């Protein structure tokens, strides 16, 4: 049974460090089931086999949750900061090309690519829970919402002080990622609320 369990955990598509945690936890679970069956006069081997239930369902659930352990709040903020810098520079250089559409598409792609794994599922979990500190998904979104503006303010100040440029154009594309993030937040918050009520 322990070899079967080890093979099962090794085959899971989850981070390597989480495999050790899951294996230790499930091994303890199976051992507890075995001990309990022995105490009650039942067949310990049958109890151990039954303890884990449907392995396919367990696999689906674990593979949905475990990858999120890769992402800490600081990790998400760091990803958001890098994405913000790239987005700010993209809009700054390409903001007026083809009415900004290229910059918008590119900046949205950057925001999606830089997002931590399973951001949407994480966001749903974070919005479902009340009064829990901001998690990695919200941290990433808020960083991407505010980060580009910090870079642009720095660029405006630098151009004003060093190059003497005292005017700046603000293309609509500068707000595209911002609006997309708020839209996602509003949609998911409403969804979380509706599911809670239902």
């Amino acid at each position, binding site marked *: 049974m322990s070899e079967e369990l080890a093979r099962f955990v090794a085959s899971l598509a989850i981070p390597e460090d989480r495999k050790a945690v899951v294996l*230790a936890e499930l091994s*303890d*679970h199976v051992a507890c089931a075995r001990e309990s069956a022995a105490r009650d006069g039942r067949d310990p081997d049958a109890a151990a086999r039954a303890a884990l*239930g*449907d392995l396919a369902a367990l696999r689906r659930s*674990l593979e949905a949750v475990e990858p999120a352990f890769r992402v800490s709040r600081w990790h998400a903020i760091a990803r958001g900061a890098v994405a913000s810098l790239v987005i700010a520079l993209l809009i700054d250089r390409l903001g007026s090309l083809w009415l900004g559409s290229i910059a918008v598409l590119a900046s949205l792609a950057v925001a999606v690519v830089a997002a931590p794994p399973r951001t949407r599922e994480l966001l749903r*979990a974070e919005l479902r*829970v009340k*009064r829990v*500190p901001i998690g990695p998904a919200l941290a990433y979104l808020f960083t991407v919402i505010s980060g580009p503006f910090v870079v642009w303010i720095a660029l405006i100040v630098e151009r004003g002080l060093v190059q003497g440029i005292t005017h700046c154009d603000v293309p609509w594309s500068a707000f595209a990622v911002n609006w997309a993030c708020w839209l996602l937040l509003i949609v998911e918050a409403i969804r979380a609320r509706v599911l809670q009520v239902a």
Partner: protein
Amino acid sequence: MPRDVVPRGALRALVLAALAEGAQHGYALARRLEERARGTLKIREGSLYPALHELELEGAIEAAWTRAPDGRRRRVYSLTRAGRRVAKTERAEWLAVADMLRALLGA
């Protein structure tokens, strides 16, 4: 015949309520809930551990490594301060739902 499908979100509330009484490992938690349900509920491990891990990710519970009497490693879960607040809120919400259903469907 025990039910093995707990309504969406209810398992979280049950886990939080059980942990509000003290730190426990997964197996003990499942058996405690089943004992309390007096044979009307079967906790599926396929839902229990992912639910525990999701609550851990959200910061509502935390895990610590200990050793079982035979020396094997064991993860024991307990509520965080934020988790205690979440447990209270979820308990109140599910009790309100239960009251509503009782009123609508008849006791």
